[in-house]
Every structure is written in structure tokens, then in C-alpha cells.
């Protein structure tokens, strides 16, 4: 090719420029298409509960009556999903409460107190935590955590607390990584100015670093919450799946993902029961969209205040 005239070279250059550019653009657009297809599919399946089985959306969202297999003679199926929604909220909320302080503390440690230690040792550790499959988390929860709770604290062991504890370990890498990213981009000037004024490290962290990194940290927290909401197998293995609103954190309970995993295969497509499960999947999708929206709002606020 080197022996050819520069003209042909030019031609190839231009050709490749356009070819390359078109290919990458097409793939970019493909991502949109994949997302749209997924949303459309879930939407078309998920709304059948309301369009085909004529269950009012209000009943689905705000009723606790879950009798999906009830005979027509006794009033037909009732598919109120409120218990599952509340279960998901409680379990993920508690997981977040447990996980956030530790995750943020770890992120501060990695970026402010001992960055070299953080990079060489803690970063790989976090990556391994991410890599441990959720079945393994669930399995450790089932064989270590559940018996521990049963013997040391009481109750049956299968509980909201067990689910939250397992989840809190699973979401900490997400929170820590995002929080550490936002902590590490804080300009050194801020810190130096603070130290120059005679502040100690803790005062600097508390008064300067933490507030300026707050939007990033919140983003991490919301991402963690999103992950907690969507986790299925690990939670299902340890919460006991009792269909009720838990009275205490030691009670067994149920959530959206576990009822989907348990019933999806055993119900036939087209039945109210099965449709209700798809509606729950759609609900999970909508919830993730809400989380993204929240993250964007936080991001915008952060960028205007900074």
C-alpha cells in the first residue's frame, strides 16, 4: 500500500473515516434500540393485568390482598402487590442504612487518609467483593447468617434483617466506588486552604471535603439503593418469603423480586397471576427509571452549587 499514490491513500482515509464513524454511530443507536425494545416489551406484558384482567392500577399498587389463584366463584383473583412493594422498600432501606456509613467512611479512608493503601489493597478488595456472585452471597447468608441470627438474637433467622445484612454487603462496593470517585476529584486547593487555616484532618474532611463531595456520594447511595431493589436470588434465600408486612426486623417477609422468581415458572402465561408478576417486573423497571431521575437531579444540583 505504501507504493500507491497519495491520492488513493487519501481516498482510503476518507472512506475509513466515514465507515468507522458510521459503524460506531450505528452501535450507539443500537443501545437506544435495545433499551426501547426492552421497555416496550415489559410494558406490553406488564399492563395486561390492567387491560386484560381489568384489575384497577390502584388495587395493584395499594392493596395488600394477594390471592392470585382464587376461584372465580369466590370473587376471582386479587393481585394487590403492596406487601411486596413494602417488603422491597423495607429491606433495601435498612440495607442502605447499614451500608452507607461504612461505605462512605471507607471511601474517605481510601481517598483522604491513606490513598496508597486504598489503591493497592482496598481497591482490589472491592473488586473482589463485586465479583463474588450473588448466589454465593445468598448461600453464605443461608449457612452462616441465618443460623447465627436464630441462635444469638432469636426468631427463625429467616428475616428482614438477614436480607438487609446480605444486601448491605452487596451494595457497599457500589456506594464506596462512586463516593470515592467524587471524593478524589475535589481540588487539592480546598484541602490545602483548610490545612493552612490550622484545621485538623478530621475538621477538613467534615467541613470541606464531605460537603463538596456530597452530590457524588448521594449518587452512589441512590445507585446502591437501585441495586438493592433489583437483587433477587441472594435475598430470596434468606428472608423467609412470608407474605405479610413485617412487624419487626426479625420477622420473615417477602419482596418483589422473590415473588417473581418463585412464581414465574409455575404459572402459565396469560393468567392473571402470571400477568401480575409481569406488572411487578414493569414496576421494578419504572422504579429504576425513578432512581435515574433522582440521580440526575442530584447531579444538576451539585453542578450548580459547585
Amino acid at each position, binding site marked *: 500500500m505504501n507504493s500507491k499514490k497519495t491520492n488513493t491513500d487519501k481516498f482510503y482515509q476518507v472512506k475509513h473515516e466515514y465507515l468507522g464513524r458510521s459503524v460506531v454511530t450505528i452501535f450507539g443507536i443500537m443501545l437506544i434500540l435495545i433499551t426501547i425494545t426492552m421497555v416496550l416489551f415489559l410494558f406490553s406484558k406488564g399492563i395486561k393485568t390492567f387491560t386484560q384482567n381489568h384489575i384497577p392500577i390502584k388495587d395493584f399498587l395499594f392493596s395488600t390482598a394477594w390471592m392470585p389463584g382464587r376461584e372465580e366463584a369466590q370473587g376471582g383473583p386479587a393481585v394487590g402487590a403492596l406487601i411486596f412493594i413494602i417488603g422491597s422498600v423495607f429491606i433495601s432501606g435498612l440495607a442502605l442504612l447499614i451500608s452507607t456509613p461504612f461505605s462512605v467512611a471507607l471511601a474517605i479512608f481510601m481517598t483522604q487518609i491513606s490513598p496508597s493503601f486504598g489503591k493497592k489493597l482496598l481497591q482490589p478488595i472491592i473488586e473482589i467483593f463485586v465479583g463474588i456472585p450473588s448466589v454465593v452471597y445468598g448461600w453464605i447468608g443461608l449457612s452462616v447468617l441465618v443460623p447465627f441470627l436464630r441462635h444469638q438474637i432469636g426468631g427463625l433467622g429467616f428475616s428482614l434483617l438477614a436480607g438487609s445484612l446480605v444486601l448491605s454487603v452487596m451494595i457497599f462496593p457500589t456506594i464506596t466506588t462512586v463516593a470515592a470517585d467524587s471524593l478524589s476529584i475535589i481540588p487539592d486547593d480546598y484541602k490545602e486552604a483548610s490545612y493552612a487555616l490550622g484545621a485538623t484532618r478530621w475538621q477538613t474532611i467534615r467541613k470541606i471535603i464531605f460537603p463538596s463531595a456530597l452530590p457524588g456520594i448521594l449518587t452512589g447511595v441512590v445507585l446502591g439503593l437501585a441495586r438493592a431493589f433489583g437483587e433477587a436470588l441472594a435475598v430470596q*434465600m434468606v428472608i423467609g418469603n412470608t407474605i405479610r408486612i413485617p412487624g419487626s426486623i426479625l420477622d420473615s417477609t417477602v419482596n418483589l423480586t422473590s415473588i417473581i422468581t418463585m412464581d414465574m415458572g409455575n404459572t402459565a402465561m396469560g393468567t392473571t397471576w402470571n400477568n401480575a408478576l409481569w406488572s411487578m417486573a414493569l414496576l421494578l423497571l419504572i422504579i429504576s427509571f425513578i432512581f435515574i431521575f433522582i440521580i440526575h437531579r442530584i447531579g444538576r444540583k451539585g453542578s450548580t452549587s459547585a
Partner: protein
Amino acid sequence: MRIDPKTTDKVSTGVFYLVAAGFILLLVFFVGYILYQGRLRLNLNFITSAPVFMKAGGGIAPQLFNSLYLVFLSILITVPIGLSAGIYLAEYARQNRITKAIRFCIEALASLPSIVIGLFGLLVFVSMTGWGYTLMSGALAVSILNLPVITRISEDSLRGVPHSYKEASLALGATHWQTITRVLIPVALPGLITGIVMTAGRAFGEAAALLYTAGMSSPKLNFSNWNPLSFTSPLNPFRPAETLAVYIWKVNSEGLIPDARQVADGSAAILVISVFLFNICSRFLGRLFSNRFLGKSK
């Protein structure tokens, strides 16, 4: 009485160290526990033999192979798409609606619960295509799961390349595309490789998205048959393929083999060891490539 700021500083530093130490201990406990429980099964025989039906002493060879093959297929699908989308976002995208839409879609895809992706896979890759539960369906489902991650990593590592490199290349008369393929990608390669290997690790351990796509059974494989179109060939992507993570889930829930607990223990240990290997590999490859390319360009 006010507490001396220096004391608070020392106490808080101590607390931070404690938290960090706690996490290290937690990992040591996790990994130690898994490896200790699975120690009896960590031998070649377990890895290389097939499960025995309803009897003790079976291995996990087909499941391990399926996991690896599934990861390979999903990488084959995600890397070209994800890398291209990443190039588009980092180099070509202007601040317009399409770019915004792509970014939103990436975030939406990334935050989807994997069970939802599995259900989507059941509808589209399993039922609509008529393939049934196949390795390919599973690979596609896992690809959807990994696409946003690969795209983000590609974009980030391309953006991480110093501007001077790009300017120098363009100044020498290279086109934008030439600059991307010959300067940006090679320089960004360490980051890319690390990212790809990390996502591979994630695909390796995925179970929820595979229950309804790749299936929960593993027909007999004939490891001497390498014709990808043959039904018993391990290479045929259109056969049901239970992966290791799914197998752990199934063994636990069915418990039909008498040594279910040990098999699950052993499989979990193998999974965790694999995750370790993936991590070490990504670090090693990343360093190797960064030495090669950055060394050369200096």
C-alpha cells in the same frame, strides 16, 4: 468542656482505620469460609468430571465449561458494540438529543434488575426466536447486562487519554478515525482490558438472568466432538447450558444428590477462585499492555 480538635482528629482517624480493617477482615472471612468449606472438593477430579445422577461424587465439568463459553460468547457480542458505542460517545457525540438519549439508555440498562433482563430474555430470546433455553439466549441476556458497563468503561478510558496525544496525531495529518484506532485505542487499551475482564467476571457469576434463558439443565456433552453444529458438542451454542452459578442455585434448591452441600461448597469455591483469577488476569494484562504501548510511545 470542649474536646481538643487534635483528639477528635486522632479518634476519627482511628475509626476510619477500623472501618478499613473491618472490610479487609470481612473479605478474609468470606473467602476463607468459602475456600475452607469447599476445600475437600478442590481437586482436578471435581473440575473435570460430569455430575453423577442422584449419586454422590459428581463433578462440575460441563457447568464450568458452559460458564466459560457463555462468558466468551457474551464478550464476543458486547465488546464490539460496547467499544463502538464508547468511541461514539467519547469522540463523535455532540451535545444533542441522540447523545442524551444514549446516555439515558445506558443508565437505564445499567440499573435494570438482572431478573428483569432474564424475563425479557425468556420472552424474546427463548420464546420468540423459538430457540428454547440455549447458551446463546443466555449469552445475549448477559450481554444486555454487560453492555452499559463496557460502554461506560470504553468511554472513560478513551477520555482518559491525554489531549496532547490526540492533538499530536491530528497535527501529523492523521484522520480522526486513524487517530482513534492507532493512538487512542492502543493507549486506552490497559483500561479497556481491565474493564472487559471485570465484566467477564460478572458474567461468570450471574445467575438470575440465566435461570430463564440458558436453562437449568445440562445435556450430556461429548468433549471429543468439536463440531459446533452437533447436538452433543460442547461448542454448539444452541443447546441448554446450565452455568456454574445456576448449578449452585439448583443443587441447593433441589438437593437431590446426597452430597449436595459439598458440591455447592466446592462450586462456590471454584467460582470465587475464578473471580480471583479474573482479577489477577485483568491487572496483569493491563500492566502488560500499558508497559508495551506507553513504553513505546515515550
